[in-house]
């Protein structure tokens, strides 16, 4: 009965009219990415994506660290929804996989415990005099990019192919745990057969690699990372993933969660410092891109405007393979004038031109 199962994991994604909420980590570590995504959606594809500047963090990080009680996070989520209701939208577009998981969880809880929903309405009313409606559709930005992959690919001047050899680039994907492991029906392909990233990469002509530890956690794990004593545990988990993908010599790691994007990128540096090992053949590390970064690059956006200089593993080798032309000198020239060059790692190879 496999087809039925697959049907369960197909997701309805509305074509237009979204209320957008941002991701804390993406904002902080990859600030260009969200701007690029909004620019693509609004200007390249002409969608109506509304953003209310009054929205806040979903408190997901604190929630997963057991720092925020359930009532608080429910009220915060309710406030976001009230902003959406106030703006007249019914489709919520979430930029962060953890936030996405939080929204799914709260909606699920309210569905099974209507009294909690009532309590939340009351708490929100008492604290802010606001009321809210539940969203009709809850969509992660990777869902939307996946949904729009064909129009994006049609507009794209590039393909995920080595320009000099015409070899399809090998892509390993990492779908964040909270995307579909908690609520498999909430994402494309569920937890077992995640297709949200692989479908995107294949549309661009890349070759997907189903490596053994594909479904393993990136190692973030919130409280595991956030307490320094536990950080080795986080790192060990990331290492399992890298060891597993190493044999396939991937050209690119594709992620949909900003947290995963950061960990799979930054931990390559840390592991290289600790063990002297990198997981590519040239010692430069495996480039990591999130779905919207990939879409923006494919659509010909400038890498440095996109903020790719914020990545630890340098992306120039990948850009060269795809054949994206970039201004090497522009990489570190910021709005406020040229910044000083970052320090050089002792193992991971980088080049500053």
């Amino acid at each position, binding site marked *: 009965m496999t087809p039925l199962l697959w049907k369960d994991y197909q997701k309805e994604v509305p074509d237009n009219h979204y209320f957008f909420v941002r991701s804390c980590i993406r904002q902080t570590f990859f600030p260009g990415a969200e701007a690029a995504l909004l620019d693509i959606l609004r200007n390249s594809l002409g969608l109506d994506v509304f953003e209310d500047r009054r929205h806040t963090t979903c408190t997901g990080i604190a929630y997963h660290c057991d720092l925020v009680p359930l009532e608080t996070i429910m009220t915060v989520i309710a406030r976001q929804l009230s902003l959406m209701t106030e703006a007249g939208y019914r489709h919520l577009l979430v930029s962060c996989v953890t936030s996405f998981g939080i929204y799914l969880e709260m909606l699920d809880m309210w569905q099974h415990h209507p009294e909690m929903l009532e309590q939340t309405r009351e708490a929100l009313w008492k604290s802010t005099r606001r009321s809210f409606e539940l969203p009709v559709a809850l969509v992660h930005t990777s869902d939307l990019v996946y949904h729009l992959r064909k129009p994006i690919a049609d507009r794209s001047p590039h393909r995920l192919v080595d320009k000099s050899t015409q070899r399809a680039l090998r892509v390993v994907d990492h779908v964040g745990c909270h995307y579909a492991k908690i609520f498999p029906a909430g994402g494309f392909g569920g937890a077992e057969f995640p297709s949200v990233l692989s479908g995107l990469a294949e549309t661009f002509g890349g070759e997907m690699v189903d490596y053994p530890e594909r479904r393993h956690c990136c190692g973030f794990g919130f409280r595991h990372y956030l307490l320094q004593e536990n950080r*080795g545990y986080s*790192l060990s988990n990331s*290492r399992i993933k890298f*060891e597993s993908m190493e044999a396939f010599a991937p050209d690119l790691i594709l992620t949909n969660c900003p947290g995963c994007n950061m960990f799979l990128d930054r931990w390559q540096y*840390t*592991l290289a*410092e*600790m063990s002297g090992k990198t997981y590519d053949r040239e010692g430069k590390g495996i480039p990591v891109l999130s779905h919207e970064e990939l879409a923006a690059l494919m659509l010909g956006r400038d890498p440095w405007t996109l903020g790719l200089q914020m990545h630890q593993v340098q992306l120039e080798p990948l850009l060269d393979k795809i054949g994206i032309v970039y201004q090497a000198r522009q990489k570190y020239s910021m709005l406020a004038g040229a910044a000083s060059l970052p320090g050089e790692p*002792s193992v991971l190879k980088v080049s500053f031109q």
Partner: protein
Amino acid sequence: MPKPDFGFAFAPNRALDLSAPLLPEVQVVLETEPSIRACMACGQCAAVCTAGAFTPLAFYRLVLQLRGGDVAAVGERARHCMLCGKCQMTCPRGVNIRNAVLLMAALAPPKP
């Protein structure tokens, strides 16, 4: 550039990689004392072990670890054995445990 101190470290991978070939030193042990292969991990050896009353020595676990390639740990642990032979007397599969332990103990790095 000196390596930074991160204040934490990664744990070695716990997964067994059975697709990797047996280490040559493990192969030597198994070929020199082929009866090790007859072990079915029933635990009789560990149950009667004289040293096992004081330290987590258990021959059947040494066999499992040896086959898993955890050579250094096997060698270190095998050195706790007193060679009294009680386990060999009761082993239902007739494993030459004393000889096996002597061979295993030689796998550990030499004593300083």
